[in-house]
């Protein structure tokens, strides 16, 4: 999803790929990405989490944490 949003090759998107480092992933790109993730996973991040994750891996962590909450 990160690769698609920023139009970079998927190999560039490691868990360490991050805001400011990946081409296109700036503060506005970040908003687009978070919107895309919300749509894909049909979830809604709380306001204080939108600017939380700065790396691809951290977005996955956040998603996992939110899904655990849902499953309880």
């Amino acid at each position: 999803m990160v690769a698609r949003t920023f139009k970079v090759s998927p190999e560039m998107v490691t868990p360490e790929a991050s805001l400011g480092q990946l081409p296109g992933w700036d503060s506005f790109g970040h908003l687009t990405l978070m919107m895309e993730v919300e749509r894909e996973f049909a979830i809604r991040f709380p306001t204080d989490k939108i600017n939380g994750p700065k790396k691809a891996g951290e977005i996955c962590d956040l998603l996992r944490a939110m899904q655990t909450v849902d499953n309880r």
Partner: protein
Amino acid sequence: MSAKPLSCALLSSFTLDPVAGLVSTRLESLGLACQWFVSPFNQYPQLIVADNSQLMAAQPQVVILAVAIEDLLEKLPSPWTNTVERKAEAERRIADFLSLVRRLAGRLPSSAVFVHDFLPLVPQGNLILAGQSGVSLRQLALEANDLLEKHVSGCPNVRVVPLNEVFSALPHAALCDPRFYYVAKMRLGRQALEALAEHYCRLLRAFAGLRKKCIVLDLDNTLWGGILGEDGPDHLLLGGDGPGKAFQDMQRILLDYFETGTLLAICSKNDEPLAMSAIREHPEMVLRPNHFAAMRINWQSKAANLREIAAELNLGLDSFVFLDDSESEREEVRRLVPAVTTPYLPEDPSDYPTFVAQLPYFDTLGTTEDDRRRGQMYVEDRERRILAQTSDSLEDFLRGLNIQVLVRRSDSQFIPRLAQLSQRTNQFNLTSRRYAEGDLMALLEKQNWRFYSAMASDRIGDSGMIGAALVQVDIGTATARLDTFLVSCRVLGRGIESAFLAGVCSDLRANGLATILAEYIPSGKNSMAREFLPNHGFQLAELGWRRPLDSEQMAWPAWIQLKIA
């Protein structure tokens, strides 16, 4: 299709940056590149006013100004305790905004400026009371929109973006996502951004002149309800007070397209005499034979018929949109003639009128006299083709037409049509240079550019302005450079292009020019113009083709009467 990217500027009172990326991605798939200048949020007044701003330096072709009413009327006095002050302050800010719009339009006269109208995005509380104050945000927005509409009618290069309609498919609550507003000053939510991006794409496509030219229609269950061959003409579902009215309403919308320059054609598997008499005589038909530029009513495959229609109208297959209720027919067309745009038609005919009205392929920023007459002119072309088939020889036919060509130096009133021809003409176009109205305006202001137009008419009808030439002259060396020379595909095959060139050359010679230079730039679509220059006495020179103007006059076919004004 234009090779250089469209330069666009987005000026906004809130964060709107993601929309630029969405628009670029969508347009790339259509082969249209755009380059964005996005203002830092809420810096639009400085960018518009300052002499040396990045905006003025960029000279964008398209400027979008998106100011939210919540931002413009931020922190107004209370509607309850300071009603008078609130109203006065709101009016002052709106007037300032309008004069800013005028300033922007005046400083970038050759750019197209699109201004968002005002739509309160944040749902208001206490609806009953708010209405009573007379100065609620909603009421102020309504007044502001009125003023904006009036104001814009005085600025020819400004158009309004009607947000209410742009967002019509979305629930109001989805427009704004407060989370993104509070973290990033972004007033629109994801769905609203996408709807807006879709609308911007339409604006930019219209600006670039990328509109489709012809809607091809099936008959049974598309243009009317029922199957003519089985139900008979008296039992078609068409008009009246019931569901048949949907088909009639759709026909009215198609008539609107016809009257604004989109061609209509028929492609149907049907019995031709029966179908023709229904089109001609059914009392509830809105569209009649004289609305269709071409008709293929037979038992051939639709793909073959579409190719024939394209050949008959002399248009590329990519100019066509095909509407048919049958998915298997549509699938076949998509597979065999993929250049034709074949959208899904809604399952339910009640949805046809809205669907057809919202087809995104025919947007234009304005219509010209030629647009309003185009449908009629193609129908006249159909008559000419019939006449050609019944004449003894091609030359007999051409002599019998009494073709008259009027070539004249043109001024700014011809610019809309000139821009349109330069954007739409592919086949007989020596250089395929594309110009927007603003570009042409700027050229015409230079003393050394001349525009020529060619109008054609014959005994069947008036074809309007069908040729355009742009010439750059150098008085010092008595040399003219033919920058653009094009003739509409509608009139090709009659020698009109030769008469036009002869007219242009004769006027240039009368103005003291001795030599004309010209180029042929292959575009992949203009091979029919390849031999045009050598065939008219041009010699290959170091930079293209060259011909003296003072030698013998250029010849044109004897069946054309040429007038130069």
